[in-house]
């Protein structure tokens, strides 16, 4: 699995974004995942989202844990730095990185094993700290890279390829994120790019932690009948509460004015998410309602997707830390070292 970059023949015809970059400039190495793996579709959606957002690829830091899903950051935004850390601990690495340089955009990619099993503690604490990042879990209900054992998101009673039945309660990361105070919570499906791309765009623009649980079938180990994470099952039980378009508009407009089932959610930078409600009663600002709705539909075996909860003016970890506006990693020696005079005073106080 050596690192292959695709030949970047620049067709003058290719559409360019505001930075004059083409979609190609947002790609990465050739994927080494299984043909048909849901994760590759998510990588494609990420590429599309960043291309459309016209964010310079090298200003994005891509971090992950360990797993097939965690390998994917190699397959997009090749011009950005990546960090394939250790299993289940990506959140802490992102937290440190985000504190070191507040000017980069942080994208954390993880798997259900990586985030719901070994990584649950760090998942929970990064949510409550409100690190300014987009957190994507590529959720297939199994450990792909270790050949198909159940993960903590596998539904109770769901069958493994070799026939074993899962006997443990599944963890719903979306409900967990809500209870833990995440300020942007969504669920998507790798098979529905139309819904996923705007979700990612909105998440990237959201201040604080934006979590997207993306159901992403594992064709090698969890795409058989009897699996609730298979393409067929999710297509059949996909319960989208809303559809959204993202408009990086900068001038503020009057938001939260429901107009015929359409609602505008203004992001901190003035960008707007236009929500077309599919379920009139579903209000993405009502956490309690969201929890109830999720619990109810989960009981019916339905997969609720869409932008499930968003807070209007969230704060992030840098606010809590009251850090300076410039990245900490750019501070000069003069700003960092108190020097000998201060030291003399320190000594004097203790003499």
């Amino acid at each position, binding site marked *: *699995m*050596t*690192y292959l970059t695709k030949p970047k023949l620049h067709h003058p015809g290719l559409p360019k974004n505001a930075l004059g970059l083409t979609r190609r400039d947002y790609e990465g190495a050739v994927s080494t995942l299984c043909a048909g793996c849901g994760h590759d579709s998510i990588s494609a959606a990420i590429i599309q989202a960043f291309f459309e957002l016209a964010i*310079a*690829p*090298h*200003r994005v*830091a891509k*971090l992950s844990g360990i797993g097939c899903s965690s390998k994917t*950051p*190699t397959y997009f935004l*090749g*011009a*950005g*730095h*990546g*960090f*394939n*850390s*250790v299993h289940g*601990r990506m*959140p*802490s*690495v992102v*937290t*440190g*990185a*985000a*504190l*070191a*340089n507040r*000017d*980069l955009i942080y994208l954390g990619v993880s798997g259900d094993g990586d985030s719901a099993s070994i990584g649950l*503690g*760090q998942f*929970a*604490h990064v949510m409550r*700290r409100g690190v300014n990042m987009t957190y994507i879990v590529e959720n297939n209900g199994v450990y792909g890279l270790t050949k198909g054992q159940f993960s903590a998101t596998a539904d109770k009673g769901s069958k493994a390829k070799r026939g074993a039945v899962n006997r443990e309660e599944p963890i719903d990361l979306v409900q967990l994120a809500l209870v833990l105070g995440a300020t942007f919570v969504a669920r998507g499906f790798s098979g529905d790019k139309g819904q996923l791309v705007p979700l990612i765009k909105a998440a990237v623009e959201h201040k604080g932690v934006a979590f997207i649980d993306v159901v992403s079938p594992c064709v090698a180990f969890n795409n058989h009948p009897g699996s609730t994470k298979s393409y067929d099952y999710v297509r059949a039980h996909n319960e989208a509460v809303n559809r959204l378009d993202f408009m990086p508009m900068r001038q503020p407009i009057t938001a939260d004015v429901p107009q015929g089932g359409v609602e505008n959610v203004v992001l901190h930078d003035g960008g707007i998410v236009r929500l077309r409600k599919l379920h009139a009663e579903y209000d993405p600002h009502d956490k309690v309602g969201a929890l109830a709705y999720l619990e109810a539909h989960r009981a019916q075996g339905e997969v609720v997707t869409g932008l499930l909860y968003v807070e209007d003016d969230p704060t992030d970890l840098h606010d809590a830390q*009251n*850090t*300076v*506006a410039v*990245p*900490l*990693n750019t*501070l000069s*020696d003069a*700003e*960092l*070292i*108190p*020097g*000998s005079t*201060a*030291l*003399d005073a*320190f*000594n004097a106080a*203790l*003499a």
Partner: protein
Amino acid sequence: MKPIARVNDFVVKFANVNGSGSASANGLFAKAVLKMGVPVAARNIFPSNIQGLPTWYEVRIVEAGWRGRRGGVDLMVAMNPETWDEDVLEIEPGGYLFYDSTKPLPPSRFRDDVTVVAMPLMEICNAAYSDPRQRQLFKNIIYLGALAGLLAIDPAVIEALLIEQYKGKAPLVESNRKAFRLGFDYAAANFAAIGLRIERRDNVGNRIFVDGNNAAALGAVYGGATLCAWYPITPSSSLAEAFAVHCQKYRVDPATGRHRFAIVQAEDELASIGMVIGGAWNGARSFTATAGPGISLMQEFIGLAYFAEIPAVLFDVQRGSPSTGMPTKTQQADLLICAYASHGDTKHVLLFPEDPKECFEMGAQAFDLADRLQTPVFVMMDLDIGMQDWLCEPFTWDDSRGLDRGKVMTAEALEAGKEFGRYLDADGDGIPFRTYPGTHPKRGAYFTRGTSKDRYARYTEDGNAYVDNMQRLLRKFETAKGLLPEPVIRTAAQSTRAGAVWFGSTGAAMAESLVALAHAGIHLDQMRIRAFPFADAVLEFIADHDHVFVVEQNRDAQLRMMLVNECGIDPGKLIPILHYDGNPLTERFVTREIAEKARLFNVTPLRKVAR
């Protein structure tokens, strides 16, 4: 039995109950002696508990300026009935016992080779105060006053300290002075002079009385650290807490009031080291402070930092182990787990400060070394240096000194087309160049990973590329030897084929012990090791001697192991001197142990050691 008679050279030990407010009174006592110009070596001996258990404070008044414990107690201030018997037992023959005589005790509870100084403390308190809290608190100040009288400490000195302590709070100063006077006058009126006395000297000079955690935290500030991620654990918590205090003072943007630092109390040690690695990867100097259990939990991440070559600084304030062990006791038993942290083939850089001053210096230097070597650096402290106040030379800083960020490739260099291979040994020293994330639109981006890779950071499972990389890491470790603090070597007054080696807090007792040994005719050349990997000088020193005593505070002779492994030394010539009961080493212990072993190995013609 003749009562002990000593001026400016004796040990006072306070036996109290923790949470009873005795700590500040006892601290005042030590400070007062210092203000008299007489050095002290003080040790706080406390339980892993918040309130109600026995705690001791040992103050060695030592004109000669030794900083270690001597062993034995000359004057016991026995304020804890629960530990009375063991406390009385610990007094040296001819020593003194100060106690609260309000409730009479049977003669059987005393010793006839010990002089008793009785004071009806509670009675005096109850007479002077009605509020129980006041009684509780001022009792301590009253006995402080009595001791001042007994030992001839100038009351003006203590009153000055009170004013300093309660700056601006006049009523508090007043009430404390009153309590102090109560005790002082009582002593004047009732106590006969004893053989122990403190006389004014000028032996303290401009030395400062400070604990290593505070010093190391200040070192981190001077070392340019901007991110501290930690999880509370004794005895390291006060390091992170001191960093917060220093940052509030030195790192707040005067214009905006905003912070030039970030401090995260993480959810656990796995998260704190993860944050440190994330911050360091992203170009901000980052550190954590922890103790043994934390180091154990960080193992996987430390291996990542080694293999992915991330600068990260870890302060390990060692405590009694293994497992939860003795959280409030001191030990030097984390050497192996730090030196070879994580699974697989790894070797790490360790620094060994001997006192708070070096905690400050190495605390700053660690960050330069980490950036220069692009690898984790451990500052190996222990509870004895970290949480105890030590008398040190004042800290110094050369304002011409900047931060050495190591080999960082800039956007300009990349733009200019300089070749970049993240794991390419460009200079033959094993240290590659790195780029900070986001440096250049087209060049210098790479993928950081814990899996094996080639010189250009591309993932590979090729065996040759793997070996190539692992051997470069060994070259880098060789390079480290030349950059780390050199050992401090002193040759004995009399030429000898024997030597002594130690590191860290052990030095306090060693300095004194070596003199005692020399008096006994045991002359030893001396080497204090300050870093791992070991400089060539370490190997040479050992090669130059037939017998080398390796003095350390753990059971398994861990430093000795590392010396043998890394220097290919015949273990036969390294004689382990081990102390690991969790209490700070005493001069008496080391001297006795070395003298005995010296006899065994007939290191030198011997006269008996005077004791």
